[in-house]
């Protein structure tokens, strides 16, 4: 967070100096970032909730775009590409501190977002939703539960899970998707 920034205002444009005006990839990265900013904000807000984490994630998303050498050719389907980057980011990137690459000479000053975060009502509502979802875990089939648990909690790869459960990797993936799908149904029906 910028020290001294006015956290009471909603600021949807990056503050500070515009990124180094270098055409080509970085310009393109900036353009698609701005074009899809609302969508990505919505995504990170749902998953991360805390404004500081959301801001970190948006910053990291931009940096990953700016660092991608052949971004234009990879980005035929822009939304799909961005959501793929964002997915990888939340799945494994956020436990580490972000390291801002100084090589880029890009100054996308830290996003300033409305700093109030979720209201107590929203936080409680999410907690209740998740509790309902938790009870769905018991209704999963044994394979679904075991595969999803091992893959997520024990961080086992699909190959490791398939060798422990003695089924094919295809079956492990099917169980994982089925588990996620049933949990999502439970979340959806409670909101």
């Amino acid at each position, binding site marked *: 967070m910028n020290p001294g920034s006015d956290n009471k205002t909603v600021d949807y444009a990056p503050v500070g100096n515009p990124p180094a005006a270098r055409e080509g990839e970085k310009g393109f990265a900036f353009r698609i970032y701005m074009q899809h900013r609302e969508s990505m904000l919505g995504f990170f807000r749902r998953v991360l909730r805390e404004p500081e984490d959301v801001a970190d994630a948006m910053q990291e998303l931009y940096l990953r775009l700016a660092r991608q050498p052949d971004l234009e050719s990879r980005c035929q389907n822009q939304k799909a590409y961005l959501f793929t980057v964002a*997915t990888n980011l939340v799945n494994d990137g956020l436990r580490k501190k972000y390291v801002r690459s100084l090589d880029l000479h890009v100054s996308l000053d830290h996003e300033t977002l409305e700093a109030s975060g979720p209201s107590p009502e929203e936080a409680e509502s999410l907690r209740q939703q998740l509790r309902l979802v*938790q009870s769905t875990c018991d209704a999963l089939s044994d394979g679904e539960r075991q595969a999803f648990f091992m893959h*997520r909690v024990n961080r086992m790869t699909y190959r490791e899970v398939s060798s422990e459960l003695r089924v094919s990797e295809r079956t492990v993936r099917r169980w994982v998707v089925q588990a996620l799908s049933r949990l999502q149904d439970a979340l959806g029906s409670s909101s």
Partner: protein
Amino acid sequence: MTAASDRGDSAIRPVSEAAYWYEKVSAGDLSDTDMARFEQWLLEPGNEADYANCALLWNAAEVPEFWTGGPAEVAPAVRRGALSRGYGRWVALAASLVLLVSGALLWPIMSAGDRYQTVVGEQRLVVLADESSVFLNTNTVLEVSYTGKSRRVRLDRGEAIFDVRPDAERPFEVQTGAGTVRVVGTRFALRSMENERVRLAVSEGRVTVSPRDSTRAEPSPVLTAGEILDFNSRGVSSRDSDVDVETLLQWRSGVISFSGEALPAVIREVSRYTSTSIEFRGKDLSGLRVSGIFRVGEVDAFLEGLAAAFPVAVVHAADGGIVITAT
């Protein structure tokens, strides 16, 4: 017993599109055609929100508390020291007894009972009809038989933490091969050890132990918080008090920590969590002490750490097993 023989596993269920896409993206399984289809799917109203919900769940499910039903203050993706925080909350919920039961002891099947099982590497919470709960560790079998007059469970093998609701009319009993544990208080944990020995650890409350073949003249030992006792069918073999029982229960968070245990014992402990056989061969290295953390499921990382820190070699045998030898 394979998971596929359990309920409903062979059925192929319809899945939500969001779950389909989230798993595919997370697995990195996206061709150019897939990207185009994913794009079209994202453009339809409501799908971005569904996708975000899947992201939320995918990451929430990584936290052990999500599965144990503990108060899940879920901030999954950004964890600043979250592991110890989560563990602390669980302890506040459930001071437990830990019983470890070793060996597959032959039992007649309990009638009118339910059977719960975990495979190697799995952990699972079971909530019983009276809202008592049992948290099963790796490779554990539990049978439950509740009647109007009694609450009986049997721990056939493995390790479990019992959180027992008070019921003056119906005492709660756990049968093991070595004897019966009766709860007059709250929570405890049990573990099967080698040679038909059972280890009982009490975190809160009072528990009595009746070794199966002990004479009536001997009073049943009563344990309270912070006490550990090993017993077999003939009686108590060792007893200790003022023990840090909570450290023994860390496996609930998927983490096993070692502080100065002998290397062969550590290897034996870690091998409980995988069906890959891990053998230790060679000269006696029980003088070597291990301190560190093993995260359930990360056996490879554990072995790499061993090889780096100790004069041992880790060899993968042709039959798929692992042999650790002193170098």
